[in-house]
Structure formats: C-alpha cells, structure tokens
C-alpha cells in the first residue's frame, strides 16, 4: 500500500519534459516534490500563476503571491502572472498538458465526483469543473476506498458529478489504472498489494489482463 507521498511519487513518473501541469489541493500538491531528474515542468496555479516554486522561507511570505490553495508560494525564473480569465483560457484551451486532482468517486466511464456531498456543507467546485472538462490528460490521485472501506472506483458515481467521461488515469494507494471504454484497466499494483486485493476494493468494471507488475518507485 502506498501512503500519500507514495501516490504523489508514482504520479510524478508520468510527467514529461516540457509539460505544464496543474496540481490540485491535497495529494496532488505533493507531486511537485518528486519531479524526476532531467525533466523540466512548469506548474500552473489557476489563480493566475505559472512557474510556481516551493513555499517561501519563513519571513519571506508575500501576501500578494499565493497559490490556488491560498498558500503562500514563490515563483521560479521564467514564471509569469496573469488574470483569472487568461488563466482559464490556458486551461480551457488545453495549453496545460496535465491536471492532477483528488476525487471522492470515479466511475469506470471516466465520470468524476469531487465537489459536493448532498446534505453536507458545500464549499464549491472552484476551478475543478473547468479543469476536468477541458484537460486532455487528467490523473486522479486518491485512496482506493473511503473511510468506511467502500470502493471509490465505481460502476457509476453516486455523488453529484464534477465532470463526465474525463478521467484518463487513476493512481491510488493500491494501484495504477487507466480508464478505458471497457472500464478500469489495471496497470500496476502497489507494493504488497495483490490483484485480488484490488479486485475486492474495486466496485466498477475491472480489466485484468496478463501479469500485473508491481509499481517501481
């Protein structure tokens, strides 16, 4: 089983040189800590920042420089600042090559739900609906099951949707899966996790073809 950092580390392997990447709040943010050597990517923050760097050293925080999670950040050389409409022009116009975000549920047709639980306080979708509707390449980072042990990889989402048919890949604490026309296709197992474990934890259609390698971190 992977921890949060393990999930982030595995996702970082998907990065390609020259990509612009938008990382959501939570596990996705950690991906920035595991950029493979020799790979140069730029991080986009949808509040209007490209070339986002690490958090500032204490005392160097700038109230006028935050990320989409409202955290103080820094900028790297080559970065740029822009307004919200240009920021989403980048996203909607598919100039950002990869979006990594968390989810409450993913369906085996690529539907995603990650913004609203009926009956609970709803904070809003922020930029998530724009991101999932536009991005060509969406990786979901999440735990395979919820706190009650129920699968989050479903035949059909039960929560209100964030987007339809948009998720391409999922990295959980148990597995790496592609979303295909036939359902979730198992690509890799987390260390110490069996195919059987994954089958038991996956409610949606799961395709297991041949040997499933353990992921390398």
């Amino acid at each position, binding site marked *: 089983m992977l921890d949060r950092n393990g999930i982030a580390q595995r996702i970082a392997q998907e990065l390609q040189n020259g990509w612009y990447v938008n990382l959501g709040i939570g596990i996705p943010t950690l991906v920035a800590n595991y950029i493979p050597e020799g790979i140069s990517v730029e991080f986009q923050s949808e509040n209007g920042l490209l070339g986002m760097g690490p958090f500032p050293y204490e005392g160097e925080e700038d109230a006028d420089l935050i990320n989409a999670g409202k955290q103080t950040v820094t900028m790297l050389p080559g970065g740029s600042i822009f307004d*919200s409409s240009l*920021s989403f022009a980048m996203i909607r116009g598919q100039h950002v090559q990869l979006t990594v975000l968390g989810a409450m549920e993913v369906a085996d047709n690529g539907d995603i739900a990650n913004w609203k639980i009926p009956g609970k306080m709803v904070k809003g979708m*922020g930029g998530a609906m724009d991101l999932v509707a536009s991005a060509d390449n969406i990786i979901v980072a999440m735990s395979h099951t919820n706190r009650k042990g129920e699968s989050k990889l479903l035949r059909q989402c039960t929560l209100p949707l964030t987007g339809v048919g948009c998720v391409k890949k999922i990295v959980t604490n148990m597995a790496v899966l592609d979303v295909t026309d036939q359902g979730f296709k198992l690509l890799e197992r987390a260390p110490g996790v069996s195919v059987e474990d994954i089958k038991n934890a996956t409610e949606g259609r799961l395709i297991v073809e041949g040997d499933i390698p353990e992921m390398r971190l």
Partner: protein
Amino acid sequence: MNKVVANAREAIAGIEDNMTLMVGGFGLCGIPENAISALVELGASGLTCISNNAGVDDFGLGLLLQKKQIKKMISSYVGENAEFERQMLSGELEVDLIPQGSLAERCRAGGAGVPAFFTPAGYGTEVAEGKEVRYFNGKPHILENALHADFALVKAWKGDRFGNLVFKGTARNFNPVMAMAGKITVVEVEELVEPEALDPNHIHLPGVFVQRIFQGSNYEKRIEQRTVRSRD
C-alpha cells in the same frame, strides 16, 4: 481626465440596497479592503455579491456577512467562515456556485460586450441544468451568459488619475475582469501615482474601464494559509 475621489466613502457613493456588486480578489488576496469597510459603514443591504470567494469570518466579505448585508453570493468556492455556513444552511443566504473559469470568463464577457459563450465546463453536472447544450467538434458545451454589476469594487497596486491600473503578483486574479464588467468601477490602489510614472506598455488594465479611483490606506493584506519551508 481625473477620476480620483477623496476616499472609500466617496468612491462607493451610490451603492444602494439590492444592487449587484462584483468584488475582486482570490481568497483574501487582492481584495478591496477599504471599499468593503466603507460598505459596512454605509450599510446597504440585500446585496448580490459576485466574488470568487466570500472571505473569512472577520475579514473580507465576511464583514458584510456579519452585518447581514448580503442576500446572495455568486462564487466558485465559499464557506471558509462559520457565519457564512450558518446563513447558508438556515436559508438566509442564497448561494450560486459556478465554476471558477466560467466565473472569470462571464465577467470578462460582461465587460467585453459578449452576451453569451459556449464552454465545456460543467457539462453533465448540475451547473448545466437549464442551460443550452451544443456539440462542437464532437464535444459537448454549455451556453453561459455574461455577468454584469452595478458596481465593481476592485483593488490594484498602482493607478493614476486616468484610472490606468497595475496589479501585483496573484493579487491580480479577478480584479481586471471585474473592473471591465462594472457599470461603475471603483478602484482602490496602494499607490496613486502620476500618469508619467506608469509605462503605457505595461498597464494591466486601461483606465477606460474605471470610473472612480482612490488611494487606499491601512492595508492589512491578511494571509489565509501562511505556508513556509524550513531553512535546512
């Protein structure tokens, strides 16, 4: 051409009950602190506020919520404060949640005279309910309308008497597009400068969109999530 007014109170003169306001900022970054304070003093109520977020309990739009001046929020992400949650759950406060990119583009569209446009964001979700769906290149899109406001309250870093604006860092965010979409756009700046002090080639928003501008004061610029790394 001189759009300078003396202070925040003068700048927001004319805001009345039940008006629609756009308020710039992302979280607490780049919010019009002075105009909000003046609006709390003015006491106009029944307001519809279009703003990406709704502030925190004791700062930003939270101050207007405390005074129950807001009837409806149009935002992409809210609820960082308890009073907001209480008012929303009790039904005192109407909340219209819309995708952040659609919010930004709808403001820009309002300012740019584009009454409606198609976007993929929200298709197949409750955001799309009641909206026209159309396919372009095989991909479904929904029709979104432009947003307008009686007043836009905007914060910039520097500005001149023509209303030309320069923003700083991510405090830019929604401010320029909301400035475009206000019938009366009120701007507060940290530094009111002479026109000659701004490079015409580097003005983020031309003064043509601005009706009133004033020198703000006592900026708190509160940080919502102070996040640092250690120096090891």
